[in-house]
């Protein structure tokens, strides 16, 4: 799935190496050092993800998103989207299934947007780079942006009025 990424990185590395060996070596060193430095934060995140995904499996999320009350549907969706982390290749097919089951577009918008923008589980990484305060502010702002998007989607798809 990410072959092209390896293609680009490999090609860039090769060209760089041909043009200037020393600079390329330096680049690899920087890459390795930064990667190693942030690895513990990633490990923390993956551990949290593995536990949260066990506690809140897809089925549970699907149940709550299908709530009869629009208001609660959106709230549950943004709550679950915020506290979980899913790669797109799992999240969007799941949304596709939910849509066919009659879950509202606005609920799915709240879910996918918070899933992508609000990261309770990516907090260990984000705080390493930006500090605790900025991380919290950015996530709160993102949460409200997701709610606005859900409402707009609801209006455009005629689910609110």
């Amino acid at each position, binding site marked *: 799935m990410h072959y092209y990424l390896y293609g680009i990185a490999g090609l860039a590395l090769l060209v760089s190496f041909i043009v200037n060996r020393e600079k*390329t070596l330096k680049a690899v060193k920087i890459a390795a050092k930064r*990667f190693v430095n942030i690895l513990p934060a990633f490990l923390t995140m993956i551990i949290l993800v593995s536990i949260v995904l066990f506690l809140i499996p897809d089925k549970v999320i699907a149940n709550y998103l299908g709530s009869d009350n629009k208001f609660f549907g959106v709230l549950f969706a943004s709550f679950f989207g915020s506290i979980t982390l899913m790669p797109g290749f799992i999240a969007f097919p799941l949304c596709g299934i939910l849509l066919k089951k009659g879950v509202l577009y606005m609920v799915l918008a709240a879910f*996918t947007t918070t899933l992508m923008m609000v990261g309770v589980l990516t907090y260990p990484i984000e705080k390493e780079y930006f500090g605790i305060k900025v991380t919290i502010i950015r996530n709160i702002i993102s949460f409200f942006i997701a709610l606005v998007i859900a409402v707009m989607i609801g209006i*455009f798809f005629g689910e609110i009025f």
Partner: protein
Amino acid sequence: MKRDNIVKIVSISCYALFLIVSWIFGFNPGKQIGLNFITFSVDMLIILPCAFILIGLFEVWVKRETVEKHFGEESGIRGYIWGVLLAGTTVGGIYVAFPVAYSLYSKGAKLSVIFTYIGASAICRIPMAIFEASFLGIKFTAIRLLVSLPLVIIASILLGNYLTKRNYKITEAK
């Protein structure tokens, strides 16, 4: 800091021990968590080395002036456009955007552009948007992008200005 480290090491060890014991005794929840751990680790180990190699190359080849000109204080509206375009090509997820954003920032990009980049790479990655549209429809994706981008940019400008006034600096040397 030291106390934190000890807590971390102890909890990671407990986690690992739990997984091993679950595996030996066939405790299903533990096995499930172990599988989740492996799936996500593999997913990240595929993406991250490439991302960091590109970050390393960016650090040695791209001049500070170039970043300042296109992403910095003087960049005006172009900075946000560049931020969004760069975000469109970002792979993985928001967790890849953080180290990239940090590199940009340390080369002189302004905060509001950095936050625009992070927000946009969460919601406007092109491969992801195409995937999304194929499951939820083009109308859904188009509305989501058209509504979210201005919001992300406005919020980033507000947050950036607020932090700049407060003399906020990203100090972590990662």
